[in-house]
């Protein structure tokens, strides 16, 4: 009896101590999310008050399911995420391996590599827009000089070519971040493993495949989670670079949602879109954590 009541007291004390934190989480995370879900079940058009604000069940979700522009946007987002992250991982791994070597000026190189990451996305996007914009742009000049293009081209009027600056900009900007995360992973690998392998006659390729990559897996998966979630929410880069065009060929879901919510002020429909994006990113995160066995706690050893 005594023991139980003491436990109860402790539990009560525990709850009391975490209560402020829980309240804060509730206020800034759960409450807005709940409200968004509630909004998504209503017809709520801020600029059309004559429609009222009736409860319409899942009608907004049905509209989303039947909206080709949404499916297009989802496809664009997936395409952008897969292509840019693959490139970033590949180049980032290469950079991380290089930076992990001992050489003079290593500290300086590590800092210098981070510069693109430090530039605000909107500024970086404007920069890349400038490079690819107009026939007098730097990209056109270089490609024509190198005889790759016969004449300057307009990059932003064709879907295939409009993706080029978008993906390049993202890779340029985010690879340093990926490299840094992977570098941290590399530094956790015990050097004696390589020494032992070398003694056993393993070459560099074998060492990379059987020591570096397996032991780097946690770092790679953490990077993947970060980057996939970022990729799915891509907004500012594309907003500035292509505005989603030509037509809607490069429009990601976040831009479409922004458009519905803040340009057209369709609060109900926009909220439903937000809920869908939330569900997708949440699902992806779950998939990574459960399916691929990422331990965010880092108690792998």
């Amino acid at each position, binding site marked *: 009896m005594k023991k139980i009541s003491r436990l109860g007291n402790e539990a009560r004390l525990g709850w009391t101590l975490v209560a402020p934190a829980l309240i804060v989480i509730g206020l800034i995370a759960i409450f807005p999310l709940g409200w968004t879900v509630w909004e998504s079940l209503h017809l709520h058009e801020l600029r059309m008050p004559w*429609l009222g604000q009736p409860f319409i069940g899942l009608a907004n979700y049905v509209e989303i399911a039947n909206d080709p522009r949404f499916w297009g946007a989802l496809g664009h987002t997936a395409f952008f995420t897969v292509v840019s992250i693959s490139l970033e991982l590949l180049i980032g791994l290469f950079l991380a391996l290089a930076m992990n070597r001992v050489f003079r000026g290593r500290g300086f190189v590590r800092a210098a590599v981070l510069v693109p990451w430090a530039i605000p996305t909107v500024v970086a996007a404007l920069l890349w827009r400038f490079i690819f914009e107009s026939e007098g742009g730097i990209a056109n000049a270089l490609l024509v000089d190198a005889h790759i293009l016969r004449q300057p081209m307009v990059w932003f009027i064709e879907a295939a070519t409009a993706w080029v600056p978008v993906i390049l900009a993202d890779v340029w900007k985010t690879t340093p971040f990926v490299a840094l995360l992977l570098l941290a992973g590399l530094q956790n690998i015990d050097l004696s493993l390589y020494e032992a392998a070398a003694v056993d006659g393993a070459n560099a390729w074998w060492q990379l495949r059987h020591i570096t990559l397996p032991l780097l897996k946690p770092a790679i998966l953490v990077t993947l989670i970060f980057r996939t979630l970022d990729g799915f929410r891509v907004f500012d880069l594309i907003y500035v670079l292509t505005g989603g065009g030509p037509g809607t060929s490069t429009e990601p879901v976040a831009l479409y949602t922004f458009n519905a919510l803040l340009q057209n002020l369709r609060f109900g429909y926009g909220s439903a879109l937000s809920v869908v994006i939330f569900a997708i990113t949440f699902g992806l995160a779950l998939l990574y954590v459960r399916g691929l066995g990422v331990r965010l706690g880092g108690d792998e050893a």
Partner: protein
Amino acid sequence: MLPARTPSPSFPVRFSSLSKPLLVLIGVAGIFLGCARASKSHETVLTFSGSALGAEGTLVAKQLKDFMRLNPGIRVELQRTPDDASQRHQLYVQWLNARVGNPDILQLDVVWTPEFAAAGWVLPLDRFGPASSEFFPATIVANTWAGRLYALPWFADVGLLYRRTDLVPREPATLHELVTDAQQAMARPGGPRFGIVWQGARYEGLITGFVEYLGAFGGRILDDSGRVVVNQPAAVRALQFMRDELYASQIAPLDVLTWHEEEARFAFQNGTSVFMRNWPYAVGAMSDKTQSRVAGKFAVSPIPASGDPGGHSTATLGGAQLAINAYSESPAAAYKLIAYLTAPQQMLERAQAVGQYPTRQSLYSDPRLRTAIAIPPEDARRAIESATPRPVTPIYTELSEILQIELHRALVRQAEPQDALNSAASRINALIDRTGMRKLMSAARQTTDVPDTAGAGAPLPADRSQ
């Protein structure tokens, strides 16, 4: 903080007979009264909102001051709002949803009036007896919803055709002539690389250009009864013509598909284009010899008709309107201010200070306007008289977005013009159904007594709001 307030002339005290300390005391009391919003005196406080940057800001401040001097019982405060139209729109919509009475006077873009009117956010002005007939008819049509006037046009913007007079001395009478003129000028040794530049990026500017081609071929987006006719043959011909300028006659560079007003102006100003479609604002910068290579070598005219039967020369109407917040506490005073700001004298002042075109017809025969605006007033008048408003409907913004996407798809050759316009039409129809517009518009037509020629027998679509 508070500007120093000078006692008004009607202050019922003879100052000369008072001692200095007492004067100071009265002054201090005056400031306190001012802080308390002078609820005891019968002063009305109005808030005016609108774009107030640079020269425009100075002018607005001066005119508000003049108004207060003439109307001692009314104090006007200037509330600055973003200069970017869509940001201002967003702010207004949020305030009005919250039924805030401030600002009392709203500066509306020409395509917002029906939206604000249908939402009940701005007051109908008819009860104040506005002199509607003195304004250009198109500017009144654009501000009329369900037969009532909801805003007074403050200044007008119109799409104009800029032309290099050294290359094309005579303004083209038809669009086909424009193409020939452009091609001939481009073929000259050392001639410009581009024949015509316009705004073809996927944004509102694309619609303003399209409306002009549409008029030139006799097409429309919505007809008088609100039916969607943007996929009719004339509209398809207009879009095809725009596309031919890019790919067939190749007088327009593909770059225009990413251009807004400023990129087009730079190209024309650097002498790389024979023609340009743009708003009147471009005249100023391009007349400046230090930055423009075409100063003194260009003229403007209305955009020509296609030459096809049914087509007519037209210009898209832009500009700003003044309306009264429906939740305003002092609508009568607010109207007084609107009437003052849209009076001939103030419009003329505005033209002189910032070069914006007056919306009152009579001012175009006033010799003072000739020095105020950069082009001959007859030309400006001709363009405004031929102006067409974009569809006057509360759902304009979303309608425009649909059209922007489909037009852009056709112009970048992702879709054929007919298919793109069919898709636009079906999506606009879906929008009309979704928003209960058919019902709203037929109610609007009943109040205006416009005979309904089409679609009256059609059953109303199920309305989700019920």
